[in-house]
């Protein structure tokens, strides 16, 4: 099976910075994700705590992780686009 790209992407001077940002975002998400697991294993009762509107912490945290993933993705996209604008434009100007 071929896995080639649909089109050549050209030189991207922002790629190293984007990769670094990705690693930071990964650690941030890992911290929150691991937090859920740690609370579950070490202080299980806390997950049953009613947070608001009759919803417990497990549900709020779980849905929160899903929503946060989406928000983080949007932020990642915006920041990557900005890096590309800045760094690739500078290079073109030289």
């Amino acid at each position, binding site marked *: *099976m*071929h*896995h*080639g*790209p*649909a*089109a050549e*992407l*050209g*030189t*991207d*001077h922002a*790629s*190293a910075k*984007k*990769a670094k940002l*990705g*690693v930071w*975002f*990964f650690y941030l*998400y*890992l911290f929150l*994700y691991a937090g*859920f*697991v740690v609370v*579950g*294993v070490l202080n*299980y*009762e806390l*997950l*049953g705590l*009613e947070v608001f*509107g*009759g*919803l*417990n912490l*497990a*549900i709020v945290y*779980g*849905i929160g*992780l*899903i*929503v946060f*993933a*989406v928000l*983080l*993705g*949007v932020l*990642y*996209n915006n920041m*990557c*686009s900005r890096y*590309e604008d800045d760094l690739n434009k500078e290079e073109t100007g030289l």
Partner: protein
Amino acid sequence: MIYGVSYTALVFFIFFVGLVLGLSFYFARKTKSASSYYAAGGQIHWAINGIAFAGDYLSAASFLGICGMIATFGFDGFLYSIGFLAGWIVALFLIAEPLKRLGKYTFTDALNSKFKSRAITLTAAISTLIVSIFYLIPQMVGAGDLVTPLLGLPHWVGVVLVGIIVIFIVASAGMTSTTYVQFIKGGLLLVLSTILTIYIFKNGFTLNPVNDGSAYHKFITLTPEVADSVVISVADYKVISQQNVKTKHFVKLEKDNVQRWFDLVKDNDQYLLKEVLSISEGEQGIMLYNGEPREKAKFFQVGHMSKIIVDGKEVEKTGPVSPFRFLSIINKSEIVRFSEVKLTDEGKKVTLFYQNITKGKDFMLPGLKYKIGKGASVWSRLDFISLMLALFLGTAALPHILIRYYTVKSQRDARKSTILAIAAIGIFYVLTLFMGLGAAINGVMDVESSNMAAPLLAKAFGVVLFSVISAVAFATILGTVAGLIIASSGAIAHDLLDNYFNWNLSDNKKVKVGKISAFAVGIFAIALGIAFKGMNVSFLVGWAFSIAASANLPAILFLLFWKKTTAKGIASSIVVGIMSSLTIILTSPTMWDRYGLDPANAIHKLDNPAIISFPLAVLTIYIVSLLTQDKLVEVHVEANV
């Protein structure tokens, strides 16, 4: 479960499956080149690509398995939703950009481009083969489950049917997952899940759910005479036998020449016998459902509320509810789940499904499957951590998952597509929570298999919705199975025979060997699909994730982020990852049960292997790479080839 044939459902089902397959073939003929294969040469709008991305990712396991597990074990099923999406984030943040800098698009391509190593070719091909096969099992199990209520045929017929269709497709025309087909599937899955969820909210809660126009089965409760926890007599019934399983007591009673099982429970100092569902072997090997032959149809769909508490008051039903109110009412109320017990009676195997009253607050917390609360053993806590680790790391390690990311024209569009996909997948996973909970309380559950929770819930709301949802799920399974069989046969014919064993096949022979491999893998998949009947498909996908995370992820992460990584380190890590995860899975309590042994006597108590196999693989790549530094091949990572 006993199902009759629904001809209306069948007509809609065949129509929609035909439509999706027809579109697949149509677009497959139109897109021949590698670049147009995925994205029509970068001409596709990013939004369409994004939904197609979601369509790629949301396999039948997401839809069937997660909803089924939530309906059976409550929040523990939702862990899969959380983990599957989190895993996707790992793939995007950690792997996508650095891998793109390598100019390679799959894990195998990336490894082989850097080290021209025969050991890596061999181990990566075996890894692809094993992960694909473990991914195939849940698809086949799901296919069998889907066909059963539509055709009224046994599970194995469904599995064989899917196997034959896919082998035929792969061997004759080939089937490609083109962007438009994935867009249609992904879009339909989202729209249909939203409709189903709206139905759930509109329906609200009731103690007496109505399923497809017929009333819920009224479970019999009897008052026995009991001495020392042994049932002596019951009015109008003859006591046949009593079996004690751990702390539970099950009693077989006879009335009108029909033998049925009851669960002896103590309620407010009074003994009661509560009706259970049973499957047992009768005379001449005929299977009996609740003591009667199959054709009498005395087996029922189940799952209901035993108490509905609204604002502190107990009510019989509610009207329509909002999403938040839906969750908070379940949290305060009480649900009747049906738990399985196996025993031997008069030398014959009997499976019982007894009413397990569960408080809503327990249902809405982890712990019913993966016990982590007070009194939980170290094993069960480790199992929980292991599952969460595998889900988090598994997605990025699946061989095919990021391909679509690289196939649009501009990077911006690729990212926009991805973000839309994450949003769509995220919304879908939140919907699985409502669909699973809705199935648990609306009397639609099939006790023999949790996988049909969502489609059967749809059936309760209308046969058209049911057949369309089933058709989309079925078409998704066909597409996924075809893709996996192609990938497996490619690993055998191309990577192993041609590249590793140097068979130097001509193009014609290569195609022939590929087709024979596809046929062999297809037959193997059919056998596995039958062998794993009744298991939750998400649980099975969890295994594929564990193997992928252990075998592939250390290799790809070290390759991308550690310059001292060597070919031998990578090959050893893949071998250790595969061997350790497979060994743990094959000796797990769940597999012990499959072998017909007592799960309590399994060698260990771990169902999910990642917590051991992943660190082992990491350690292996680190140590072996350090020990083989003289063999290090210097490679410069070119930015954006």
